[in-house]
């Protein structure tokens, strides 16, 4: 199918984009990489009267260090995350997750901000934003505000974004010498959305877990932090016994969704397997 007819504009700055959305009385969509929006338009799941193209706005671009954080401009493409030394050094968890996001050609256009704004629970970056306790910077005609990832993902494709608001940047706390991270996912084929995936961001000292955040993707209507598992591991060493206990806690904490291919029980089982693998390789990997 083809998209319904719409008008198109390419604003010169974020302010102009925000005002255009208001002038359109909300019958508008921002387009960044278009890798999720264009198929939705082609299938006529959405049919806005106006597309506001924010992909080329300088204010939304770039990776840089900013006061203890890595600033990721909203229109930073997946391929830029994958190729960036700054990301590898300061946000290693993102560098590990990036190869799992879609296929190369989609990574050449899809954007980090677009992925968070869409909030697909099967997407890698929203879950990693949660694991990293990232801060999301949002602009509206009223001004700018910041929301923690923990408050950003509300429900299926629903975020703290109000109609017309734009994600301008995401701030990720910098990794330290104690940082240990791991990411993996289980999918039927390479590049497919995962059946289940998870990322861990931990602070380790002398073999003991000082702090750990674990976020799962593809297990519910939003990315999911498993706080009981995190609590069960904090202050401990990652012995085989501790890992087994963490897997048991996960089995009761996680309440995964089922779909036509994967009943909830299977997903819970795969999540436990995945958690065991990730914890097993955590200490060795920055």
């Amino acid at each position, binding site marked *: *199918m*083809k*998209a*319904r*007819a*719409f*008008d*198109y504009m*390419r604003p010169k700055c974020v302010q102009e984009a925000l005002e255009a959305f208001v002038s359109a009385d909300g019958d508008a969509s921002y*387009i960044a990489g*278009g*890798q999720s929006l*264009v*198929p939705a*338009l*082609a*299938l006529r799941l959405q049919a806005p*009267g106006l*597309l506001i*193209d924010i*992909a080329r706005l300088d204010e939304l671009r770039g990776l840089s260090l900013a006061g203890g954080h890595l600033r990721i401009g909203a229109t930073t493409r997946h*391929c830029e995350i994958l190729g960036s030394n700054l990301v590898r050094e300061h946000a290693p968890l993102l560098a590990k997750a990036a*190869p799992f996001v*879609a*296929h*190369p*050609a*989609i990574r*050449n*256009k899809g954007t980090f901000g677009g992925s968070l704004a869409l909030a697909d629970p099967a997407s890698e970056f929203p879950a990693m934003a949660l694991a990293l306790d990232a801060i999301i910077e949002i602009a509206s005609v009223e001004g700018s505000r910041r929301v923690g990832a923990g408050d950003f993902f509300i429900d299926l494709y629903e975020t703290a974004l109000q109609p017309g608001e734009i994600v301008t940047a995401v701030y990720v706390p910098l990794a330290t010498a104690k940082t240990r991270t791991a990411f993996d996912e289980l999918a039927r*084929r*390479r*590049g*497919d959305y995962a059946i289940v995936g998870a990322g861990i961001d931990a602070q380790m000292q002398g073999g003991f877990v000082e702090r750990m955040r674990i976020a799962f993707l593809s297990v519910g209507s939003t990315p999911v932090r498993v706080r009981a598992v995190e609590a069960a591991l904090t202050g401990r060493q990652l012995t085989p016994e501790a890992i087994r206990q963490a897997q048991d806690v996960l089995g009761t904490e996680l309440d995964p969704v089922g779909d036509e291919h994967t009943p909830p029980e299977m997903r819970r089982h795969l999540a436990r397997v995945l958690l065991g693998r990730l914890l097993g390789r955590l200490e060795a990997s920055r």
Partner: protein
Amino acid sequence: MSGKVAISLAVNGETIEALVAPRTTLADFLRQDIQLTGTHTGCEMGVCGACLVLLDDRPVHACLMFAVQADGCAVETIEGLTHRRAIDDLQKEFHERNALQCGFCTPGMLVSAYGILASGDEPDRDGIRDALSGNYCRCTGYESIVDAIETTARQRRQHMEEEKA
């Protein structure tokens, strides 16, 4: 609403000025407005990879962007890559081992392969399969396609080493 928009872009090195409806995808623009039918359309939702073109030298799906978004950009299609002889060796390897049967997927495969080879490192078979994960072929079973790309990568490296020596 929905009047046509003036765009200017380079296609295969040639500047093209055109008026397009915003909802026209880049794939439809290439195929229907300027008759470059080497770019194929299958699923038109980013899944099959038949529509891959180079946008500013990187593979992207022509079905997942509108022509208006390519305003000011450089697009290269399979026709352009062929005419400037950028993939002669790759095409020869595809031909030699029947890495195509009906040929529907081939332009997309070649554009993906161009992207893999452009990175300069010599990918292993797993790496090639990974990079082709967004390209569907309903005929060949992929093995011969991976062979062709692997061989081309090796030959290019050998060629470079010979030139250095």
